[in-house]
C-alpha cells in the first residue's frame, strides 16, 4: 500500500529487531542498490523528487549531486538532533524501525561514495540511542555494516554520536562543528558542507526521515514515489500533531491532503468543542503562524502552505484553541530562541533575548505601545543579517503574530498586562 511507507512496520511485534526487519523483506533494497552503480541510485532518488524532511525541503538528489569528484573522504551525517519545538517524528522512526534507517544509510552512502556515516542524535533521546546502537550492533554482526557490506566488498562504518542539549546543533554546520568536538557554532556559507564539511571533507547532512524514504524509492523506483503526493511535493510525510487536539500524535499522510481532513478524521477534532480552532503553527515553532480561517482551507504540502505565507518546515504542527493568549504564546516561543542562540552574531544574541524580554513585559505589565515599534525594529535588524537562520526563525513567528493577532497586543496595553486570568485553559 503506497500511502504508508515509513510507518508500515510500526505495529509489527519487535519491529526494531533485525529478525523482524529481514522477515519483512528488509535489506532487499540495499542489496538491489549495491548491484546498481552509484549514479543509477542517485538517478532514482532524483526522479523520486524526494525533498529534505529536516525543514528546508531541499531536493535530496540534487544535494547529493553537489559532491565533487575528488580523492577526499566523503561523509554522511544523519541529523537526528530533532530539536525543533513541536517535532517528534524521528524518535518514532528510530525507536520502531531502526533498521530502515540503517538500510537507507547503506544505500545513500553507496550513492555518494561515502564509507563513514555518523548518526548525530540529540542527547535527550537516551533510550532511542540504545535502540539505535543495538540495531547497529546487529547490522555489524550480520555483515550489513563493516569492511565488506553484504559480501560486496563495500566498506561502510556507521557510528552513533550523542549531542548534549543544544538546538543549534541541528543546523547542519553547527552539527558538523559539534561532531568535530567543538561548540555547535554554525559556519559561514559558502562553502557548503557538500564541498567543505566534516573534517574539511565533502559532507552530506540529511534528516532521519529523508534517509528512511530511500529504501522504498530503490525498491519501487523513483517514478513510483513521485506518483504519491502532489506536484513538487512528492511522497508521504510524517506529521507531528500536538497541542489542543483530541488525539495528538504521529501521522503518515500523502502530501497534499486538506488540513481539515487531518484535523477532523485523524486527530478527532479539537479537544474541547466549546473552544474551536484559533491558530496553527504548521511546521515547527520557527514558521509563521496561520489563523484558523487560513488553515481550514489549506492543503498539507510544501506549496500550499507556502501560498498561505508559512512553511511546512519540520511538520511539527502545534494546534491552538480559542481562549489561548497569543502574547503569552509568542513569549514562550521566543524564549526558546533567546535560550538557544549560539551567540556568534550580535543581532541574534542580543535580538532574541530583547524580543523575549519585551514580550514578557507586554504579557506581565510594564510595556507601552511603543514597544511594538521596537519589536518591528528589532525584527528588521535580525532578519537575514546573521550567519544561520536561527535569528530569522525567531523573527518569523514574531512578525506573523503581530500581524494576525495585533488586537490582542493592544488589549494588553489597555489592560496594563494580560487581560485573561489564565493565559491558557488547562
Amino acid at each position, binding site marked *: 500500500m503506497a500511502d504508508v511507507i515509513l510507518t508500515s512496520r510500526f505495529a509489527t511485534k519487535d519491529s526494531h529487531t533485525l529478525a523482524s526487519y529481514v522477515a519483512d523483506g528488509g535489506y532487499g533494497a540495499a542489496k538491489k542498490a549495491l548491484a546498481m552503480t552509484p549514479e543509477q541510485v542517485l538517478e532514482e532518488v532524483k526522479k523520486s523528487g524526494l525533498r529534505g524532511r529536516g525543514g528546508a525541503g531541499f531536493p535530496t538528489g540534487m544535494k547529493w549531486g553537489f559532491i565533487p569528484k575528488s580523492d577526499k*573522504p566523503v561523509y554522511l551525517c544523519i541529523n537526528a538532533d530533532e*530539536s525543533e*519545538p*513541536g*517535532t*517528534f517524528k*524521528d524518535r518514532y522512526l528510530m525507536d520502531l524501525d531502526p533498521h530502515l534507517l540503517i538500510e537507507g544509510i547503506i544505500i545513500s552512502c553507496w550513492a555518494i561514495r561515502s564509507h*563513514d556515516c555518523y548518526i548525530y542524535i*540529540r*542527547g*535527550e*533521546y537516551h*533510550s532511542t540511542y540504545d535502540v539505535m546502537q543495538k540495531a547497529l550492533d546487529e547490522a555489524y554482526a550480520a555483515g550489513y555494516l563493516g569492511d565488506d557490506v553484504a559480501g560486496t566488498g563495500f566498506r561502510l*562504518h556507521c*557510528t552513533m*554520536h*550523542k*549531542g*548534549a*542539549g*543544544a*538546538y543549534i546543533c541541528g543546523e547542519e554546520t553547527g552539527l558538523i562543528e*559539534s*561532531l*568535530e*568536538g*567543538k*561548540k*555547535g557554532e554554525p559556519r559561514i556559507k559558502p562553502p557548503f558542507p557538500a564541498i567543505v564539511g*566534516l*573534517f574539511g*571533507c565533502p559532507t552530506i547532512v540529511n534528516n532521519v526521515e529523508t534517509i528512511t524514504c530511500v529504501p522504498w524509492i530503490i525498491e519501487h523506483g523513483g517514478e513510483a514515489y513521485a506518483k504519491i503526493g502532489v506536484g513538487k511535493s512528492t511522497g508521504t510525510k510524517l506529521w*507531528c*500533531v*500536538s*497541542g*489542543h487536539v483530541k488525539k*495528538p500524535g504521529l501521522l503518515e499522510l500523502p502530501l497534499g491532503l486538506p488540513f481539515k481532513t487531518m484535523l477532523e478524521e485523524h486527530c478527532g477534532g479539537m479537544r474541547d468543542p466549546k473552544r474551536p480552532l484559533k491558530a496553527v*503553527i504548521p511546521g515547527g*515553532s520557527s514558521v509563521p503562524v496561520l489563523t484558523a480561517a487560513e488553515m481550514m482551507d489549506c492543503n498539507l504540502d510544501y506549496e500550499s502552505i507556502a501560498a498561505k505565507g508559512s512553511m511546512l518546515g519540520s511538520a511539527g504542527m*502545534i494546534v*491552538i484553541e480559542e481562549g*489561548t493568549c497569543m502574547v503569552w*504564546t509568542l513569549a*514562550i*516561543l521566543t*524564549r*526558546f530562541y*533567546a*535560550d*538557544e542562540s*549560539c551567540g556568534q552574531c550580535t543581532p541574534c544574541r542580543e535580538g532574541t533575548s530583547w524580543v523575549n*524580554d519585551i514580550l*514578557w*513585559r507586554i504579557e*506581565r*505589565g*510594564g510595556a507601552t505601545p511603543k514597544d511594538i515599534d521596537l519589536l518591528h525594529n528589532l525584527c528588521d535588524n535580525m532578519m537575514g543579517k546573521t550567519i544561520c537562520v536561527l535569528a530569522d526563525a525567531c523573527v518569523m513567528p514574531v512578525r506573523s503574530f503581530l500581524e494576525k493577532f495585533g488586537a490582542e497586543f493592544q488589549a494588553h496595553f489597555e489592560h496594563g498586562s494580560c487581560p485573561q486570568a489564565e493565559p*491558557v485553559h*488547562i
Partner: protein
Amino acid sequence: MESKVEFRPAPLRVPEGEPFRLSDAALAEIERLAPRYATRAALLLPALWMVQRQQGYISEASMRHVAAVLGVSPVKVYSVVTFYHMYHESPPGRWNIQVCHNLSCSLLGAEKLLDLLHAKLGVGEDEPTADGRFMIQRVECLGACEHAPVCQINDDFVFDVTPKDLERKLDELK
C-alpha cells in the same frame, strides 16, 4: 514592573572536584572509537558523557583529564562543557526532574507542574535540595510533544504528566 529574564543562570566557576581519572573501561572505549574519527578532538562530546556517567557532573579536574587524554587544551574543553545544556558543571540532585516548558507542554499545563515542584521541594531551578535528592530544571522541547506535558527524570521520559503523577513520583524516588 516585572521583567523577569528567563535564562538558566550560568555558574561563574566550575568546582575543582576530586582528583579525576576516567575508568579503564571508558579509556578503552575512547581508544576503540578513535579510528572512527579523523581527529581525536572529535571524541570530546563522547568523552564528556563518560565523565558525567562516572562522576555525575563535570568538574574542573575532569576537564583537565579529558583535555590530556584527547590532546586538546583545557580551555577548549571548558568552552564546550559550558556551551551544552546537558553537561552539569556541579553535582545535580540524585533525581534531576526536567520539565519541558516549550509551547506544546505549556499549552497543557507545564507551568502548573513547575509551580508544584517548587512549592513541594522549596528550591529554585538548577539547585539541588539540601538532602541532595532532587533538582528541578526547565528544559526546552524534549521531542515528545504528543505526550505533553512531558518530563524527564534523569534519563527517562515521563509522559502526559499530571500534578498527581508528579507528587507520587516525589514520594517514590528516594
